[in-house]
C-alpha cells in the first residue's frame, strides 16, 4: 500500500473539489448581488411539488427583473430531495459556501424541523412552507417565517363551516403520520364544538397502496360526510379506489388542504374528482385580476395550472421581496431586515392580505372549494371564503 501515492491522489482530489466549489459562484464581496437560497425537493417522491415551487419562485423574481432597490438578485437553487439530511447539507451549502442572505424553501415538515436549530444559530432568515404547526409553537425562531397555513389553522374553523352546511356526522380518514394527526385534533375539536360528531376515524399508513380494507370498513350509513387527509399520490389512489368500490357516490367527500390540487391530483382523478370539496389557500379559477394574471403567466411558462404549493412559493417570494424593498436592499442589516419581514403586508394572488401574526405564521383567507366540470375539464371553484384565519395557537398549544 503505497501511502505516498494515495496522498498525492487525495491532494489532487482536494484541489479539484476546491476549484469546483470555488468556481460555482462564490464571489468576492463588494457591491455584490443579494443571494437567495431556493431549497425545494426537485427529485424523489415530492419532485412534482418541489419543481413547481422552484418554478413559481423563479417566476416571481423574474417578474421583478431579478433586482430590488437597484440591487441584483441571484437565486441559488438546491434540491432537498425531501430528506432531512440532504436538506441540512444543502442548507449548509447555501449558508456557508454561497452566503445567502435569505432562504425560500422547505416544503417538507420533517426537513423544516430538522434545520430549525441550525438556521436559528446562524441567523439566516427563512420563509418556509411546511404543513406542521411546530414553527409557531415549540420550534419558534425569530428567523423563521411560516408562509403556509398549519394543520390546526386549516382544520379548526373549516370544520365548523362544514357543520353549519348541514354535515353533522363525519368519518375522518387520515394517513398515519404527524401532520394528519394534528389535522384530526384540529378538526375534531372544531367540529365537536360546533355540535358535530366524529363517528369513525381510520388511519391507513402513509403511501398505502391498497385502501380496500379501509374502504370496506367505512360506516357510510352513519355519517353525512367523509373527511380525507391524505395527500399526493395517496389522494388520487383513495378517490379512485372509493369510486371502484362504488362508495364515492354514497357520501359527500371533503378533502383537507392540498387534497384537490390543480394540475397535480385533480387530472389523474378524472371524472372521479367531481363534487369533491376541499379547503385551502388557492383556486386558479377565481376571477380576480391578479389571480388571472398569475395563472395565465404560470400556464404560459410551465404549461400547467399552478397548484397550491406553487402559490405558497410565490407568496414566500412576495413576502421576501417586500421586506427587501422596504430596507432598500440593505439585507445585511439583519435587525432591520427581520423587522421588515415581520411587518410585511401585501396582496396575494387570491386578493387576500398577506401578513404574519405574532408567531410569524401567515394569516390566511381560507377558500372553501368544490370541483366542478367546466368546458369538459374538472377544476376547483370557490364556494365560500373564511377570511383572516390565524393559527389558533392558544387553543392548540
Amino acid at each position, binding site marked *: 500500500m503505497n501511502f505516498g501515492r494515495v496522498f498525492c491522489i487525495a491532494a489532487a482530489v482536494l484541489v479539484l473539489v476546491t476549484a469546483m466549489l470555488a468556481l460555482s459562484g462564490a464571489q468576492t464581496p463588494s457591491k455584490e448581488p443579494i443571494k437567495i437560497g431556493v431549497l425545494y425537493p426537485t*427529485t*424523489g*417522491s*415530492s*419532485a*412534482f*411539488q*418541489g*419543481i413547481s415551487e422552484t418554478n413559481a419562485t423563479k417566476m416571481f423574481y423574474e417578474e421583478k427583473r431579478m433586482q430590488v432597490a437597484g440591487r441584483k438578485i441571484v437565486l441559488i437553487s438546491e434540491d432537498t430531495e425531501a430528506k432531512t439530511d440532504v436538506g441540512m447539507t444543502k442548507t449548509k451549502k447555501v449558508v456557508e459556501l454561497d452566503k445567502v442572505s435569505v432562504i425560500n424553501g422547505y416544503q417538507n415538515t420533517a426537513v423544516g424541523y430538522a434545520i430549525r436549530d441550525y438556521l436559528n444559530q446562524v441567523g439566516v432568515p427563512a420563509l418556509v412552507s411546511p404543513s406542521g404547526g411546530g414553527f409557531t409553537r415549540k420550534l419558534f425562531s425569530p428567523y423563521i417565517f411560516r408562509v403556509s397555513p398549519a394543520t390546526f389553522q386549516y382544520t379548526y374553523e373549516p370544520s365548523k363551516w362544514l357543520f353549519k352546511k348541514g354535515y353533522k356526522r363525519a368519518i375522518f380518514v387520515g394517513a*398515519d403520520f404527524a401532520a394528519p394527526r394534528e389535522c384530526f385534533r384540529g378538526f375534531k375539536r372544531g367540529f365537536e364544538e360546533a355540535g358535530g360528531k366524529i363517528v369513525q376515524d*381510520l*388511519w*391507513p*399508513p402513509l*403511501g*398505502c*397502496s*391498497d385502501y*380496500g*380494507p*379501509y374502504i*370496506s*370498513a367505512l360506516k357510510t350509513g352513519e355519517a353525512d360526510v367523509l373527511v380525507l387527509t391524505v395527500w*399526493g*399520490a395517496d389522494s*388520487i*389512489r383513495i378517490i*379512485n*379506489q372509493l369510486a*371502484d*368500490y*362504488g*362508495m364515492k357516490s354514497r357520501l359527500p367527500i371533503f378533502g383537507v388542504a392540498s387534497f384537490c390540487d390543480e*394540475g*397535480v*391530483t385533480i387530472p*389523474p382523478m*378524472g371524472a372521479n374528482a367531481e363534487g369533491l370539496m376541499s379547503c385551502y389557500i388557492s383556486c386558479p379559477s377565481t376571477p380576480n385580476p391578479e389571480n388571472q394574471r398569475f395563472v395565465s403567466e404560470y400556464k404560459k411558462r410551465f404549461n400547467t395550472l399552478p397548484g397550491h404549493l406553487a402559490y405558497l412559493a410565490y407568496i414566500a417570494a412576495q413576502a421576501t421581496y417586500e421586506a427587501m424593498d422596504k430596507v432598500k436592499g440593505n439585507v445585511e442589516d439583519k435587525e432591520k431586515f427581520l423587522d421588515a419581514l415581520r411587518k410585511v403586508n401585501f396582496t396575494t394572488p387570491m386578493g387576500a392580505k398577506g401578513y404574519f401574526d405574532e408567531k410569524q405564521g401567515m394569516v390566511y383567507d381560507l377558500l372553501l372549494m368544490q370541483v366542478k366540470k367546466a368546458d369538459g375539464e374538472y377544476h376547483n371553484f370557490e364556494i365560500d371564503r373564511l377570511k383572516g384565519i390565524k393559527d389558533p395557537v392558544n387553543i392548540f398549544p
Partner: protein
Amino acid sequence: METWIIHILNGVSFGMLLFLLASGLTLIFGLMNIVNLSHGGYYLLGAYIACTVMTKTHNFLLAILSGGLSIAALGLFMERFFLNRLHKKPLAQVLLTIGFTLVFADASLIIWGGVPYFVEKPAFCLRPIMIGKSGFPSYRLFVIGIGTVVGLLLWLFQERTRVGTRVRAAVNDEEIARALGINVRFLFTVIFTLGAFLAGLSGVMGGPFYGAYPGADFEILLLTVVVIIVGGLGSLRGALVGSLLIGLIDNFGKVFFPQMAMFTIYLPMVIILAWKPSGLFGAEN
C-alpha cells in the same frame, strides 16, 4: 357474510398483483441467480408507458403489449450487453442494476415529470360488481383473472416444456449443459427477457391501482422482495402462495389490527425468517 367475501377478494386481488410482480423476479433470481435490483424500475417504466398508451389510444390490450414488450426489450438490452458478463458476481450486479434504476428514475422524471400518474382502467372495468349490497371493483377481478392466467402459463412453461428443464440444467452445471448441446447463452437471455416482460406487465396491471411516481420503484422492489422471502426463491408455487398469503394477511391485518398497519406486510416475513429462512417452498441451501 358479504363483508367477509369482500375482504377475501381484497386480499386475493392485492395478492395477485404481488404475484405478477414477484413472478418475474423469482424467475430471474431463482433460475439464473441474478440479483436484479432494477425490477422496481422495470415496473415504473412499464406503468408510465402504459399510461401514455392508454391516454392516446384507450386500448388496454395495446397498453399491456407495449408495456410488457418495451420492458422486455429493455431487459434484453441489459442482459445482453451488461449482465451477461457478470455471472456469479452478485456485488457487481447490485451496483449495475441500482445504477440502471437511477438512470430510469431520472429519465422518467424528465419525460413524465414528477406528477403521480395512474393508468386508465380498461373500459369494461369501470363499474363495480355488486356483491349483495356492496360494490367491488371489477378491475380487481380482472387482475385476479390475469394473474391466474399468467400463473398457469408459467407453470406450463416450467413443468411441461423442455425449456424449463434445460434452464435448470444450465444453471446447475453450465459446462455439462453446453456439452449436451444446450444453447446456454440464448437460454439465459430468453429467461431474463421473460422476467422483464412480466415486470413490465405488472407495471401495466398495477398502474391503475398503485400508480407511477418517483419513489414507486423502490417501494415495489421492497414489496416484491418480501413476497419472495416468504414464498421461497426460485419457486413459482412459492411466489403464488407467498403473494396470496401476504395479500390476505395485509388486508385482514389492516381491518383487525389497525395500529399495526405498518407491520402487516413485514409480519409474515419475520415469521418465515425465524422458522424457515429459505421460504415456504424454497430449496434448502
